[in-house]
């Protein structure tokens, strides 16, 4: 095909990585919560949306984007911990479907509350001044903000990895994901660990929402769309696997951007086709263990 130079494809690849970075952040929160608590958080998209609106609110109150990067995850994470403590916790041990149903109902409430507070129509979200414009990355000019999204995601991932692998609390989390009963026998307050994990997972979701806001704008329904796409990421990567979420998230981002380059009408459907193929060949996903979650 003429006009499709190597540079264009390479640029589109970077666009895909930036998009994939958002998926990665969204999906590792989902995976972390599921891996520890065996709760599929259907409100994860709502937390993502709340993160974007919290950023919007803080900016309109005179805060700047850099303050938001710290404040939004803290706010959303705190809210997540309140949800875990008072709504999700009473449902442990009542079957895997109940926390899912609860978070699903909660997402309705959260979306509607945001509609009451901010109205039903969307808002644009300005890219912070320092990150406007484009830089030459060798194959062409690439928007600086998208590079920032990739970088910020890398920082969060490295931080999370260090936290899980290098701290004693991370050790407890990993042990709790293996066998919560043994951890409890060893004298650890597992419910406190779960509270914090839910807080971290939702905080990352809020952070992802804030990062996505300048790219897509802010609307109350933004969570439902990414939730379905994040499920694709989770199925492809393997549920409860952080490494799987990272790889599959980037892959899904690249598939979306490449299909919108070559076959725009198939862009929305392509990732579901990817999921169908993975389900046919390897139902447990790239990194999932067979029979883990049955």
């Amino acid at each position, binding site marked *: 095909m003429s006009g499709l130079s190597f540079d264009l494809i390479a640029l589109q690849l970077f666009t895909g990585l930036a998009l994939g970075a958002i998926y990665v952040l969204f999906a590792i929160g989902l995976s972390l919560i599921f891996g520890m608590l065996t709760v599929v958080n259907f409100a994860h998209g709502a937390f993502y949306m709340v993160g974007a609106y919290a950023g919007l609110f803080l900016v309109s109150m005179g805060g700047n984007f850099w303050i938001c990067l710290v404040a939004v995850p803290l706010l959303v994470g705190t809210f997540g911990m309140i949800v875990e403590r008072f709504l999700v916790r009473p449902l442990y041990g009542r079957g895997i*479907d109940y926390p899912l149903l609860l978070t699903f*109902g909660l997402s309705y409430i959260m979306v509607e509350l945001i509609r009451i507070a901010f109205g039903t129509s969307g808002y644009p979200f300005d890219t912070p001044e320092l990150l406007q414009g484009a830089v030459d990355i060798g194959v062409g000019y690439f928007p600086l903000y998208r590079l920032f999204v990739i970088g910020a995601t890398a920082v969060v991932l490295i931080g999370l990895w260090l936290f899980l692998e290098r701290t004693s609390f991370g050790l407890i989390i990993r042990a709790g994901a293996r066998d919560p009963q043994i951890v409890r026998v060893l004298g650890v307050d597992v419910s406190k660990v779960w509270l914090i994990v839910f807080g971290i997972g939702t905080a990352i979701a809020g952070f992802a929402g804030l990062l996505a806001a300048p790219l897509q704008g802010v609307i109350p329904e933004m969570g439902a769309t990414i939730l379905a796409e994040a*499920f694709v990421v989770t199925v492809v990567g393997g549920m409860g696997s952080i490494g799987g979420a990272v790889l599959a998230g980037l892959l899904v981002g690249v598939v979306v951007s490449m299909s919108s380059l070559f076959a725009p009408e198939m862009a929305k459907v392509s990732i*579901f086709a990817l999921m169908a193929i993975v389900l046919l060949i390897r139902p447990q996903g790239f990194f999932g263990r067979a029979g883990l979650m049955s």
Partner: protein
Amino acid sequence: MIDIAPTIATSSSKSYGWFDLAMRHRVLLASIFVLIFPFVMPFTALAVNILIYGLYALGFNLLFGYLGLLSFGHAALFGTGAYLCGIAIVHFGLPWYAAIAVGVLSALVMATLIGSLAIRTRGIYFAMVTMALAQCVYYLFYQAVDWTGGENGLRGINVRTINLFGLQFDFINPLVRYYVVASFVILAFFVLSRILASPFGAVIEAVRENEARARASGYNVIATRLITFVLSGGFCGLAGALSALHLSIVPIESLHYETSGTAVMMTLLGGMGTFFGPFVGAAVFLLLENLVSLWTVHWQLIVGAVFVVCVLFFPEGIWGTILKRIKP
């Protein structure tokens, strides 16, 4: 296939109480209720809606309540039934009964496609895969503008009269419309009751109660799941087809994620795994929506809150709780 019929444990007590009697004649009782229902409703159009969504939740409940699989993609089945019924009328000029048949058949095909992919995963994956596949169906219909009208929905499904055995019924008349829909719902009650009372129905519940034991007893768990998913899709497709006739339009929202969620909410509100519960749930959900809409557009807040309270404190749902209380 399932070839060994399980023996259904029969109650050994000689005296059947009124409760058992009522349970045995659930189809009759539910049908009588449906027949007098429009006269206790504020307006008939709402009653028709409750019938249609009750049927939709009924089909969903077969999968969720009786088999124990939570699907978040039933909008794909409801929407396929609705769209294909509408397309049969608008693009091919088929009569209404043939269009309903087309809607139901295409929902069965869609259920087979989605089901055979989704049942490859187990447990909690199922909810996620069904939701993702339903989203895929949404985009496919959204983009086939020539056939489906895309964002504007499929318009022009005008059925004015219903011809049956030489008789003509005025479909514009709300009460006539109600009883046309009601006759399909009563048929569905009967079919569902037969499925549940059959040996296969016992296998469905056996798989829900203990999958490993059902498999060890020689039942094909995978086939049971797929067949139940497809049957469930048939009911939901019928509901979709009826909604296309009722609304004269198929909005793109009928394939939307929220439509999938509606089935989940209605079934849980009413009482999952009960015969009449989904119908009660649909009635409560739609009445609540109508009442709350009178004073605020944010009815989803109230519905969501009621749902959360139900999950936390009344997991058996309204009808399930009532049944438990009045059971002698």
